[in-house]
């Protein structure tokens, strides 16, 4: 296993108690609660700007068995303005922008999430599929429907957390300059 290489961009708020393993890049304005588990097992994870990752969330970069042989290590990319609610498990390798993963949902590694999707509470998506834009998955049998626009942004909540969390938790210091990040890309 490669050693930890955590890059935190300025403006991100990462709690010290969170368990981050592997090569992880965290974008500006992203909030990571304590007890979050991010595991870059199979390759780097890049998390975009202003994502909200709540308690007990587990984001794992794990390759399906049939793809493990490949030479080049794939990167798990999570776009910006995504919300990961309490106790959801996400293993999807490609996630676009403005998605909501509701509490206790599970998204498997073969799923590709585009933009503006909502995965309802407790829904389990394991089948290989590409979720089109603004898809809402809900209910016990994972019904789908197309929403009219992207879910509302959690700006207010995130502003409060930005102020509140540092008062009660140790914070990991940002260790990258914005310029460096841009160059890297």
């Amino acid at each position, binding site marked *: 296993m490669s050693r930890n290489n955590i890059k935190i961009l300025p403006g991100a708020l990462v709690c010290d108690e969170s368990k981050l393993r592997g090569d992880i890049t965290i974008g500006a304005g992203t909030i990571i609660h304590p007890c979050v588990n991010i595991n870059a097992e199979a390759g780097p994870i890049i998390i975009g700007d202003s994502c909200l990752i709540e308690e007990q969330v587990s984001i794992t970069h794990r390759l399906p068995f049939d793809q493990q042989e490949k030479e080049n290590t794939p990167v798990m990319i999570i776009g910006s303005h995504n919300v990961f609610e309490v106790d959801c498990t996400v293993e999807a390798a490609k996630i676009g922008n403005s998605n909501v993963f509701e509490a206790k949902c599970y998204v498997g590694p073969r799923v590709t999430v585009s933009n503006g999707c909502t995965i309802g509470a407790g*829904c*389990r*998506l*394991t*089948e290989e*599929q590409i979720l089109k834009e603004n898809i809402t*998955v809900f209910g016990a*049998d*994972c019904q*789908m429907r197309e929403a009219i626009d992207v879910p509302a942004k959690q700006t207010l909540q995130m502003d409060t957390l930005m102020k509140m969390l540092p008062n009660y938790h140790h914070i990991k210091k940002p260790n990258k300059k914005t310029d460096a990040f841009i160059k890297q890309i």
Partner: protein
Amino acid sequence: MPIYEASTEKLTVVLDIGAAFTKFGFSGEFSPRSIFRSEVYCKKTKKTRRIIDFETPEDLYDLLVEFIHKVYFKYALLSPKDRPIIVVESLLCPTLFRETLAKVLFVHYEVSTMLVLPSHLVAASSLPAETALVVDIGYKEGVVIPICYGMPIVQAWQALPIGSEAIHNNLRSLLTSNNTNIQNVTEKVIEDIKVKCCFVTKKYRAEQLGSSKPEITACPDVKYPLGGSDTIIVPGKCRERTFEVLYEEDNDHLCLSTMILDAILKVDMDLRQQLAENMLLIGGTTMIPGFKSRLKEELAKQLELDRYKTLKIQKFKFHTLPCKENYAAWLGAAIYGATELINMNGLSRENYLKDSHLPDWIDLKDTNRSL
């Protein structure tokens, strides 16, 4: 004088208990308040049970008690006691079912009056049409009964087990070749696939797709996601051939089209053309797109055969209902219920308790009394 009774309108529950869905509403209204599945939740086994799956007469009684409770206290929000009720039923309804229902209503729920209306007759009344050939295709079976001048011609009845249950079974077997786990899928999912993907295709297309080397391409396949973990592939061929079970002749060479023509054959010669020009399709299955046009095609084909040469019918005409097909019978009963009929023809609790029996056309005792 009791003439003014009608103005002080009493809420009368109108109930049409179908094998799959129950239509519930009040008399004098033009659409049912709600349509829901004819099933109850069993607390012991924690499963929903359909009423038609009853095991013993006692079991049916308990199921109906539970079900009527749901109707009154979840939907009607009324106490059933001392209130009239109108029940729509098929003329071919099993005696056990209707007697048990009457017992539940009169003894357990103590309704004051019960009026039983034959579904085929009342369905025609919503048009209104005095003469019509009513084709009712429900869940268990399709039943054809001609109505002539307001009288159901019962001796001309025709029935075949070609309801949506047969269609679901057909769809399930059609899907088996492309999907492995289809036998374990619930009937609700099969029904959903039917409703969302399938339609009654044209006759020549059906014949082509049925042959080994079709000259046409079937409609596009559909990928139906199943609970986030599985996908059912619904091939275009299945989508078009699901309803073919209606027109596949069985061992007795009977299918939907022959059933209709046989019913016409059984009525008086002078009425035949009139019936053919007053076709009325009711029941949920007839709502599927393409149903009417295919039926017309099939009827025309059957007329060319020797079997029906004697009919001498030139054309078929179809009525358009002022409502959706699946609650046509309910609507007719709701219209009947708004009239004085319930007070005149309804069976009161006193009369029921005299001999614990619901009058029936099939019973000689009741038919003699009315004559």
